[in-house]
């Protein structure tokens, strides 16, 4: 009772210590992430293998269709399958964390209507699950690289930067959509469509070098283009150089969407409990 804190509840009061509150609730973040993880593959037979099978099969299909049937060129002398998988990883990370984050508030409606905590914790905690899935399928990449006897360059040390980029790229729109989802359930149907659509629009099954030079900047409006290019640059080394103007555009867009997502989320946050 020594640390007497005085709390004032008023309409429209922007909490000064919102970010400090998030830090105070860090254990909640950890435990929610842990809950999602430990529940994820309960009552499944092959459990965690699902995290491997999905990207692996998609990679096989893409390699056959784009590499063998359509005979698209790979980046430099990198094996086509490896090039596809290097893009599959960030794409799966992005799409699953976007999907999880977008549905997170509705999935935790009972928490929101019964307990106070900074709501930002819920969508961010779900991203951890996607990240763990990513780490598991990363093992597959290492096995593939051993199989193809493909040595990575020092670029790979920068990979965490691009992982962070992929996470932030999904967090921005994810926050916005999950907040909108509370009010308008329409967005629940939009996400699976966007993710499926994005898989073909983003350079996952093919190299972004296939895109004609004059369209390259326009193509980079999709922030995942920059992330995927970055991943390939890290993993395949000099075989896939980064297209810098497009890359910078991607970063700017990711930051813009992150800002948009957080501000929209904060604005709508206070009414969540009333309308969820």
């Amino acid at each position, binding site marked *: *009772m020594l640390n*007497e*804190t*005085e*709390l*004032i*509840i*008023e*309409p*429209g*009061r922007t909490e000064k210590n919102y970010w400090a509150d998030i830090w105070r609730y860090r*254990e*909640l973040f950890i*435990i929610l992430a842990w*809950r999602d993880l*430990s*529940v994820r593959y*309960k*009552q499944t037979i092959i459990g965690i293998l699902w995290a491997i099978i999905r990207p692996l099969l998609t990679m096989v299909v893409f390699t056959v269709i784009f590499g063998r049937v359509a005979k698209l060129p790979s980046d430099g002398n990198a094996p086509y399958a490896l090039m596809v998988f290097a893009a599959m990883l960030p794409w799966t990370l992005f799409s699953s964390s976007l999907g999880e984050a977008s549905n997170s508030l509705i999935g*935790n409606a*009972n*928490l*929101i*209507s*019964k*307990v*106070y*905590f900074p709501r930002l914790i819920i969508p961010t905690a779900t991203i951890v699950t996607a990240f763990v899935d990513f780490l598991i399928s990363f093992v597959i990449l290492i096995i593939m690289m051993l199989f193809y006897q493909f040595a990575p360059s020092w670029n790979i040390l920068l990979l965490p930067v691009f992982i962070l980029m992929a996470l932030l790229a999904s967090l921005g729109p994810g926050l916005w959509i999950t907040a909108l989802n509370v*009010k*308008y359930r329409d967005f629940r149907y939009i996400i699976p469509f966007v993710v499926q659509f994005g898989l073909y629009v983003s350079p996952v099954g093919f190299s972004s070098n296939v895109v004609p030079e004059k369209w390259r900047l326009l193509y980079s409006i999709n922030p995942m283009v920059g992330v995927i290019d970055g991943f390939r640059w890290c993993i395949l080394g000099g075989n896939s150089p980064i297209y810098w103007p497009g890359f910078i555009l991607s970063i700017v867009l990711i930051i813009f969407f992150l800002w948009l997502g957080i501000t929209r989320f904060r*604005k*709508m946050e*206070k*009414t969540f*409990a*009333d*309308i969820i």
Partner: protein
Amino acid sequence: MSDIVIKAENLGKEYTIGHQAQNGRYVALRDVMVHNAKLLWSKTKDLVKGNPIILGDSTEEVWALKELNFEIKRGDRVGIIGRNGAGKSTLLKILSRITEPTTGRVTIKGRVASLLEVGTGFHPELTGRENIYLNGTILGMTRVEIKQKYDEIVAFAEIEKYLDTPVKRYSSGMYVRLAFAVAAHLEPEIMIVDEVLAVGDTQFQKKCLGKMEDVSTKEGKTVLFVSHNMTAIRNLCTKGLMLDRGFIMAHGEIKSVIHKYIDEGIEITGRKIWGDEECPGNDKLRLKSVAVFEERDPAFGIKDNKLVFELKLFSTALLKDVDIGLNAYNSDGIEVLHTASCAQIKERILNKGTIIIRYILTPNMLKTGIYALSVGANVPNQHLFFYLKDVITFQVSQQYIETSVYPEDTWSGILAPQVGKWEFINCK
């Protein structure tokens, strides 16, 4: 340092609700399409502007709480009472920061833990052990705190054997016990508890109430408790706050608040007369009126009045073996009287026409309070004419225990304290 831990000033909360207009107006398909297109357009406008979408064509603002001003002191155990829709839950939600007020402000000193639901965030797939950590963290405990209290929590919940079973396999009783055990070991300065004890058996309810009382008296914690169970409120709380349609109706000592609540709830009629068209009953026997009144009994003292229950009936034929029954309930809902004419009279014949039937209660049987009366008439095992539950209410006031040193409402028995006779043998 002042001792006021919660202070509400002019607190209000407004909700907007939608009303669906009658769709019967739209007959032609074209009209329906035009109407729906208009709706879609207005919803899209709302979406773009960021207004909440409200189902229905017209909206209405409803104040769930209005102009609330109150103060709660440290160590108070406050019972919040009121009928459904009085605003109790909204108030708790504002105090626990789940939703924002529309007007006014609340100042709270100290850490608040709110228990608005049993087992908030429990995940059915996780085991009891895991859920203790999950639920504890959600309610605001740190991992270290939970670890320290872990054994206590398990002991309180009495579920040692099932700690590694997923809670989806728990019985509902075990579930509630575990959930409350976690919440009971929170150590906030202010604890907010909504109707959570409605579930669980009586023994466990007592244990929970005892725990809350302990927390408050020994550690000086403030407790806010919402319940419809007046006995629980009376036992636990020292102060009361009564809400009605968003306003504070009473605030103060728990006794007086509960009284106000019970008195407000019951309209004391003492008498009911039906019009010719609406008499309950059937074509053989109808009930025309029911009344309860006091009547002077010359055999007793001046103030000792008999209580007369009078039924006026109308019969269309000569009826045999008719049994008339009465039940009276006190304001705690306990049935204090059940009697029927067959208990005393063997030949029970009703003449054709208007009949008056009376039941006379010996004076001084019922103690002061408000009672509800149910009446019925039947031919046992054959035919039911009518049965009316809580048809009227009546008040009994025994202001004449002049010798008593205790206040009226401290007599806790069902029967009046004047029933029977006290004798001091071998005394002066």
